[in-house]
């Protein structure tokens, strides 16, 4: 039995927050802080915490409520100050990220930003009048892919082309990151030697590079093309780095699918993720049919949540079940009873309908 190690600490975010918000966030109980997935800071509206499948407003004393009128409200200047702090008071240094709508913070956290979009011709130049910031708490779950790894390796020196699929917020990227770490490091337990790996990290979510340094452990044989679009990144990696494996997140366009084909033709293996409920769902997408089934990805890892419980399964290219676990290792389930300070039961969460569908 493998045990996943969870890393990621809210205190690493709170040091970026304006004083008043920091005081509130510091008061959140460690139990709740460890389960917080997002912190939504919106000018003029209550501070909100997002957990696995539900959200609650945050009160001034760090407890949670579903009544917005009793929650802590964020001021407009505070959102602006937060934005400048996240940019290290150097907006120009983050202008490409800002144009894409998010900033990667030291520690691997990502802050999505909203405001008035500024165009230059057809392209987004930047953003002004920042009105909200959504800080996504990045947590590495080292070991969460250990159990499924034997099903995606093909001998001691090769892996199957693998696709991780799930609806949003079910842990695709977390799983992908750990698979990448194992491929790059190798696994004594599984009898697998490490392989040269390149991550094409278009949205800086896998390695979460900050000033060129990966904030997450992606293994010693991993090179990262940070902020690079997938088609160009795959081509650059093939030309320059001769990788055995290329790791990409969120394939979604026909161009992405064609790039994957190109990598296969060049002899590289691909480990990728895509938003979908199951392989059938993905097969019907424009340009994606050729990636699923015979001659496509040889392994599919499907993640989901059913009745609040996370599950993971591995199938081969023909849909034959190779592995199934109704408790994805190390990941929090969607439903749990929330407790505020003083053991006050705040509520039982509802599951997101999107995640409830099982393949």
């Amino acid at each position, binding site marked *: 039995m493998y045990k996943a190690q969870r890393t990621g600490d809210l205190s690493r975010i709170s040091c*970026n927050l304006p004083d008043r918000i920091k005081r509130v966030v510091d008061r959140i109980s460690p139990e709740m802080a460890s389960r917080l997935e997002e912190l939504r800071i919106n000018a003029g509206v209550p501070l909100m915490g997002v957990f696995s499948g539900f959200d609650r407003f945050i009160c001034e004393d760090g407890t949670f409520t579903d009544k917005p009128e009793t929650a802590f409200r964020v001021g407009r200047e505070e959102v602006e100050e937060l934005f*400048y*702090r996240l*940019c*290290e*008071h*150097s*907006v*120009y*240094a983050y*202008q490409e990220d800002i144009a894409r709508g998010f900033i990667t913070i030291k520690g691997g956290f990502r802050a999505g930003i909203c405001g008035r979009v500024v165009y230059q011709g057809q392209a987004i*130049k*930047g953003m002004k009048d920042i009105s909200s910031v959504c800080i996504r708490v990045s947590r590495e779950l080292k070991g969460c892919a250990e159990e499924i790894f034997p099903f995606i390796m093909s001998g001691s020196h090769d892996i199957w082309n693998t696709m991780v699929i799930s609806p949003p917020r079910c842990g695709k990227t977390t799983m992908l990151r750990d698979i990448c770490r194992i491929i790059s490091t190798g696994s004594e337990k599984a009898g697998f030697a490490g392989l040269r790996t390149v991550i094409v990290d278009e949205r800086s979510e896998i390695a979460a590079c900050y*000033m060129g340094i990966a904030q997450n452990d992606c293994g010693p044989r991993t090179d990262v093309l940070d902020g690079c679009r997938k088609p160009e990144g795959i081509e650059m990696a093939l030309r320059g780095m001769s990788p055995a494996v290329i790791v990409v997140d969120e394939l979604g366009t026909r161009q992405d699918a064609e790039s994957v084909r190109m990598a296969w033709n060049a002899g590289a293996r691909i480990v990728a993720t895509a938003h979908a409920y199951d392989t059938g769902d993905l097969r019907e997408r424009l340009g994606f049919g050729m990636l699923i089934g015979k001659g496509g990805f040889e392994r599919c890892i499907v993640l989901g949540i059913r009745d609040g419980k996370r599950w993971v399964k591995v199938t081969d290219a023909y849909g034959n079940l190779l592995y199934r676990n109704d408790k994805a290792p190390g990941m929090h389930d969607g439903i749990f009873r929330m407790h505020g300070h003083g053991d006050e039961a705040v509520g039982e969460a509802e599951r997101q309908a999107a995640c409830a569908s099982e393949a």
Partner: protein
Amino acid sequence: MGMRLSARLKDRQLALQKLKDILLFLENEMCAMGKPLNKVFEDLAKGNYGGVWTPVFHLSGGILKEQSLNAGSAWRIALKETAATLPLTLEDLDLLRDFGELLGKTDREMQQAVLNMEKEKLAAMEQKAREAAETTGRLYRNLGALMGAAAVILLI
């Protein structure tokens, strides 16, 4: 005494010229390399490229990094703390107080414009300091020589 006063005027002009050179460094690091301000200031202080301005940039970089203040506030604090080490007049310090105010708040294009504006301002200040060094400096030197000669005559 006259020589010392004259040298101080020359140092003032050189300090302003140095800050003008530093602007080129800032322009390269910020607009071309896209490094954040605290890193640029840190590099400037580390490489000793800053000359007499090294303590100001070292302190500003530290404030930016540790106290998370904006560049304007960090610069003002650092300038106030290190003013005694700079060969500048009160008028110069007043004019330079707002130097950091617009740094870091906009995109590269606008930062370039901000730095160009500062370059023009510094060029005018340096020109004034150069003229002062030539005219007033010569006056101090001549006065110093005259006073020295007068003292020698009196002693004889």
